[in-house]
């Protein structure tokens, strides 16, 4: 297994090279003036476009720009992000923990609810719980995130004032920035507990409720259907029939015998969901004004902030490789028949 893991990790630099080369090759389709728009926001600056092109070497061939970028990266510099107003590395360091925190809580909820509901839907096929899960899945899949998110925001913040947007209230934000608070992990809920500031924990929690609820409702739908389908298939197998014939309780049959084997496709989906959460929740982050990496990534793409887009893509291609590795490794634990070679 160690060899397997190492082999997979060795893929990382090649994936990074491939992704970055792809992005830079797409630069061929962008004229220097289009790329200069990143630095020009007002008609008053129109005359400066040729100078900006020269200053930032935007008219160099893509392979020259790529080589310059590679040399920079080798020296540990991912470049400057105009959209984040800081270095790409600092931006990732700043945005990633927020998105990771959101993704973690959302993922936990999605897994817990998705697997449970999917399992119950399969076990109680064509009965009320199954219909309820179907309704949840369809509504979650068909309602756009921004509609659901805005609805939740209007009701629970606009009307009740319970769960505000953002990551922290003003008061909590000022405290967190002060010398009285030490950021150990970048995950505000964890740091709040480590700093023994329960009120900060609750403040962060209040701000997480709505975006987590939005993502959970939206993404649980998919997991529920896959889990249900996989469970149904597993429940029809001979060994499950044998377990029932032996007189084992339904709960034991489902929890100890069926569910584990039904999890293989769920693990695959879950790993993709997690990476997707880490990289692609721009809409949710925008609606809730949550300072995450997805929103930054979308802004960077729209404004042709190439260093940011490349840095973003590098990180997430790496995460995808790691997520797949975790998934493959988990398969071996879940199903002993699978051997990693």
């Amino acid at each position: 297994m160690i060899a397997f893991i190492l082999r997979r990790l060795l893929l990382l630099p090649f994936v990074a090279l491939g992704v970055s080369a792809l992005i830079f090759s797409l630069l061929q389709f962008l004229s220097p003036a289009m790329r200069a728009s990143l630095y020009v926001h007002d008609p008053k600056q129109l005359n400066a476009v040729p100078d900006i092109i020269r200053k930032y070497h935007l008219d160099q061939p893509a392979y020259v720009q790529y080589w310059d970028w590679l040399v920079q990266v080798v020296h540990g510099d991912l470049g400057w992000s105009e959209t984040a107003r800081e270095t790409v590395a600092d931006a990732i360091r700043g945005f990633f923990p927020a998105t990771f925190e959101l993704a973690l809580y959302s993922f936990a909820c999605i897994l817990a609810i998705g697997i449970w509901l999917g399992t119950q839907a399969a076990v109680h096929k064509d009965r009320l719980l199954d219909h309820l899960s179907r309704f949840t899945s369809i509504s979650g899949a068909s309602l756009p995130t921004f509609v659901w998110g805005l609805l939740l925001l209007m009701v629970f913040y606009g009307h009740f004032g319970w769960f505000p947007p953002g990551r922290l209230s003003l008061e909590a934000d000022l405290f967190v920035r002060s010398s009285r608070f030490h950021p150990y992990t970048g995950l505000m809920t964890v740091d709040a507990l480590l700093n023994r500031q329960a009120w900060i924990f609750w403040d962060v929690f209040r701000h997480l409720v709505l975006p987590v609820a939005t993502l959970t409702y939206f993404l649980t739908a998919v997991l529920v259907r896959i889990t249900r389908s996989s469970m149904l298939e597993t429940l029809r197998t001979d060994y499950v029939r044998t377990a029932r014939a032996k007189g084992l309780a339904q709960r034991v049959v489902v929890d100890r015998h069926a569910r584990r084997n039904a999890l293989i496709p769920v693990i695959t989906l879950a790993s993709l969901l997690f990476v997707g959460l880490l990289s692609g929740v721009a809409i949710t982050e925008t609606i809730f004004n949550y300072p995450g990496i997805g929103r930054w990534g979308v802004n960077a793409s729209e404004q042709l902030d190439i260093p940011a887009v490349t840095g973003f893509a590098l990180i997430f291609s790496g995460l995808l490789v790691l997520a797949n590795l975790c998934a493959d490794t988990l398969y071996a634990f879940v199903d002993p028949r699978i051997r990693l070679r």
Partner: protein
Amino acid sequence: MMALVILSVGTGARGAGAPVKNPDTFVYITAGDVESLDPAYAYDTTSENIIWPTVYETLIMYAGSSTSSFVPMLATQVPSLANGLVSADGLTYTFPVRQGVHFHDGSVMTPEDVRYSVLRFMLQDRDGGPSWLLLTPLLGTDATRDSKDNIQVMPGQVAKAVTVSGNNVVFHLHHPYGAFLSIIAAWSFVMPRAWAVSNGDWDGSLGTWQKFNNPKVQDRFQFDHMNGTGPFKLESWDRQAKQIVLVRNDNYWRKPARLARVVVRTVEEFTTRRLALQQGDADIIDVTRPDQSKVMGMSDVTVRDGFPMLILQAIHLNEKIDTTGNPDVGSGKLDGNGIPADFFSDIHVRRAFAYAFDYAANIRDGYRSGGTQPNGPIIQGLLGYDPTAPKYTHDRDKAIAEFKEAWGGKVWDVGFKFTETYNTGNVARQIGAQIIKDQIESLNPKFKIDIRDVQWSTFLELTTRAHKGTMFVLGWAADYPDPDDFAQPFLGSNGDYGKAIGYNNPEVNKLITEGAETADPAKRASSYRQLTKIAYQDVPSIYTIQQTSFLVMRSWVHGWYFNPILPPPGQNPGKDYYTLYKE
């Protein structure tokens, strides 16, 4: 069920007359993003809102709502001919510097700091930056570098442009410039030289400024650090949360501000901004005209409308279109399936479009009646504005008559087809484009106009570098409240728009120079009135609207006053945090 939920939410959750939330803290939620906190670098309205007059101050300031009279600020007098602080030839302006003013780091402001700051502002001169505003009147050039990036400004020129004499800072202009005080009021920010130098910036010596010329945004310490004399100082800039926090300067040279803290936060989604206002978590928010109806009638929210802004929108008619590989010109010939490169160079074509445009519908539908039709680039509120000057009106018969004259009658007989562009997401411009399409096509079935939205990056390419734009809408907001700031970009052959559309009228160029370099307001006004007449005759652009703005704020906000030049000047007017308070 969803509909019931929506209906039950309503537009207000907090009761009428709700207690003031965060009484010492003012929260402004904007849609824009801060580019830089360096006053010599920033040239966007969101950054300027933080910079001036909140953290950095200038030598003089506009008097309340006025754009033409000034009060002393970091200077103790406003120079004028009457008090002798402006020389008779209009080339020398003397500012006595106020004593006992402290910067935020505690150091005392000196005339040398003023000189340093002004020179730094000019000589930093980053691409697309604001340095030209002081370079032009003081050094007679709008750039420190030529087109090949070679420095073209001599140390000797710089040395004598701004000098210190006792407690005075003296500006020696390259040529008389009637708008000079306007520029100083908005752009002469002062920072401590010692602080700048100790943080790696230019030391003020004339032999070394070239190394600090044209930096990238992140190259300067002042990008994210501030040290001014203003009523507020920077506490933090969180780039992830897109939030800037300012705290009151208790050592301010005037009475300290009433607010203890100002928070400026960027929230791109309008609904989120609106809900924050509704909940009292924001005191003022940015609202666009199309969204204005969504804030009307909110409890404990005041909407004030009808503020005339120094912002002008126009449809620019490109007289020298690059037709090479340009899909927007169709066949590239006047054959009914396209337009040639010089299509708009015919005055009758331009006048026809000017008569065909429905100005009232544009203002009503695109801007929710938030504006008036201008009669030229010298708009209301500027010296030389002539309310009696003629303007084009929507007149189908005249439009047809002009088209029948255009290109010897060929336009009417053969027809044309081209594509008009606007930048994606700009609803007002989209409506304007649709109006012109509908009106033109209704005149003659052989006239075809397609409209296309493009990303800002593509829009830039089309309209500037490549000169491929056929007809496009772009506006202009005042850098300083003076007609020269509008005449040059719209009508000058080297102006931003004049150049983009290939408009070149030597008489116009001469009048622009005369207007700028004359100190006598009456003579200046005359030059600009003549320019307005020529703009009407030549129609290089169709001036569609001078926008008015509106302010949306919680009812507990007091102390706001209108001045069109306060940042950020846009659909929502600017604000001076010093005078604001909540109760």
